[in-house]
């Protein structure tokens, strides 16, 4: 069964360092999303991406964050200068169509020290 895959599963970094989280969405999907879940809190929307551009972003997705689909298969989330409060589980998700089912990856746990 096709699935969304994310790497790394867990990353520990020092505050101020750049982090890139990688996602391989399901191959024929067109809509891509990043969500995050701080421990003990709600899953929160960060950004959506379609047709090689950001379609929606939340207030969390500030200038420290960027997304890219560099090669037609990977979908990356970059945090330019990590802060302690960026520690969270980051989930990538994709869907074939806006009305289609959203499939989530297993997440990348980011720990900022």
């Amino acid at each position: 069964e096709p699935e969304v895959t994310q790497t790394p599963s867990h990353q520990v970094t020092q505050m101020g360092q750049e982090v890139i989280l990688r996602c391989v969405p399901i191959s024929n999907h067109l809509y891509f999303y990043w969500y995050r879940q701080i421990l003990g809190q709600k899953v929160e929307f960060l950004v959506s991406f379609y047709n090689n551009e950001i379609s929606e972003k939340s207030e969390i997705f500030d200038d420290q964050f960027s997304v890219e689909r560099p090669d037609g298969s990977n979908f990356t989330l970059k945090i330019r200068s990590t802060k302690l409060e960026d520690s969270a589980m980051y989930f990538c998700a994709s869907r074939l169509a806006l009305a289609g089912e959203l499939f989530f990856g297993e997440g990348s746990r980011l720990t900022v020290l």
Partner: protein
Amino acid sequence: TQLLEQSPQFLSIQEGENLTVYCNSSSVFSSLQWYRQEPGEGPVLLVTVVTGGEVKKLKRLTFQFGDARKDSSLHITAAQPGDTGLYLCAGEVGSARQLTFGSGTQLTVLP
């Protein structure tokens, strides 16, 4: 901001009991989705409800969407230990139909 409130936050019951989880909002949603999330994994879609008053059944799980499309409930009949997990409701918002999630209900079914 469209908020979804879930209740109860935690629920621990014995195998065989019935339970209901609620998801409420002051906002109208075009659709509501229910997910189940296991530790260390991403949410997995259980069902999407679209029409006000709609009822959907998935084996022992019954999902209902309120008439005004502001609230939803998940009822589990004869709960089993395998039903243990975090149940999340989520509503679609925005042009990208991104999800706004509820805070979740952590269900534990004891054998």
